[in-house]
């Protein structure tokens, strides 16, 4: 398989602080990579570097066989790399359909009827066909996030980036969003997913990337990573999750 995304000795700094250090990463077409790690380890920054919202300081970023320098045509790249954010960021002054069609019509200049058909098909796929003319404020968080996914998908991207897309949702809405992502994985979409949902990571990932302090500390297939983490940091990280999941019942006084 050819690498769709390739980072080599990639570094990123904010002021003098190193946020990403010597990142080497290859993601093949159709691969689902889940990025885990403690807060502030650089997971989100890594995703944001992949569509030019942040720029690296050194190292190389190759996308689909093309080397992308800092002054690359990011507008073109972004059309092929969909991104979904933690807080959805739907455009509040537009209806659902307008949100979804803004990119296809204004950026890609596609035929209105064809784009609309695709938008409606995608909305149906995430179970929101009836809400096409609603405004974001009329929708629940889970619905808004599914629309945000459709907005990215309607550009026909080669890769989808998910930045903690369930972190802002009420627990009962997490499922509906994760199911959409799972469905995309089944369909062969290449994805990089930053999440705190460990069980979901295990279910969806082809590979787990564990980051710590701006470095890739460990990467492995999910079974190996969760059953036998190689680094002490990863062990600690997983222990905290299993502690929450297996929390003992408080003794009645």
């Amino acid at each position, binding site marked *: 398989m050819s690498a769709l995304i390739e980072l080599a000795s990639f570094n990123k700094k904010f002021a003098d602080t190193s946020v990403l250090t010597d990142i080497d990463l290859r993601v093949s077409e159709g691969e689902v990579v889940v990025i885990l790690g403690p807060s502030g380890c650089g997971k989100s920054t890594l995703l944001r570097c992949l*569509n030019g*919202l942040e720029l690296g300081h050194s190292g190389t970023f190759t996308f689909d066989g093309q080397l992308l320098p800092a002054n690359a045509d*990011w*507008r*073109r790249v*972004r*059309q092929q790399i*969909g*991104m979904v*954010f933690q*807080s959805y*960021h*739907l*455009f*509040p*002054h537009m209806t659902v359909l307008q949100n979804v069609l*803004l*990119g296809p019509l*204004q*950026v*890609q200049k596609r035929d209105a009827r064809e784009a609309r058909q695709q938008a409606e098909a995608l909305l149906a796929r995430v179970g929101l066909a009836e809400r096409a003319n609603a405004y974001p404020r009329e929708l629940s968080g889970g619905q808004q996030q599914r629309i*945000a996914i459709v*907005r*990215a998908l309607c*550009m026909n991207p080669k890769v989808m980036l998910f930045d903690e897309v369930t972190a802002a949702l009420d627990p009962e809405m997490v499922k509906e969003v994760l199911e959409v992502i799972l469905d995309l994985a089944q369909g062969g979409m290449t994805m990089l997913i930053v999440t705190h949902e460990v069980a979901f990571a295990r279910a969806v990932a082809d590979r787990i990337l564990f980051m710590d302090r701006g470095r890739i500390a460990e990467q492995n297939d999910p079974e190996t990573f969760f059953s036998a983490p190689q680094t002490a940091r990863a062990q600690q990280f997983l222990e905290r999750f299993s502690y929450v999941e297996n929390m003992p019942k408080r003794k009645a006084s």
Partner: protein
Amino acid sequence: MASSGLELLWASAPQLLTGAGRTLGISALAILFSSIGGLLYGVLRSLGKRWLDVPLRIYLELFRAIPVLVWLYLFFFGLPIFFGVSLPAFWCAVLVLSLWGASEIGEVVRGALRSIPRGQREAGLAIGLGLGQLYGRVLLPQALKRLTPPVINVCTRLLKTSSLAVLIGVVDITKVGQQIIERTYESVLIYGFLFVFFFIVCYPLSAASRVLERRWNHA
């Protein structure tokens, strides 16, 4: 008195209308240019580029710190001396009011753009929007609600401040009033008329701004 007062106003109507036309003309042009300039200023400031911010801040602080009247004198008497350019008083007033108004509206636009969550900009960029599309389709439409009421207030201030143009010789409605008073000594009547004139022009604007503010705050 009452009938002779009305008769005087009636007799002076052509003169008053010309003056009113000039006042409204200066104000309308200044509002138009201020809005265009203010929009440009606000967008440029929101880009966060240092080389743009420095000159724009200097411009802003100059128009904040120096009274409009002084600017009027500076342009009216200074331009011919320093640059050999002499503008008619009417256009000089339009220019100074526009520059002042643009700094005021510009700050309103900048504030409104800043109040939009950063995620909106990123979501727009992430689907490949260019800067023009990002502002035209995503950021400015959202800012419009927040900036309309305060911009209307700037407009009423422009209208009122336009009366300073008298001091560089524009025969606007205030000046016409003074001329009639010098001829007839009917100061109460004429100033009363000016009072009503400005109130009738400005009040609907400020009322509209209040209504919009209330309606949009609830939406």
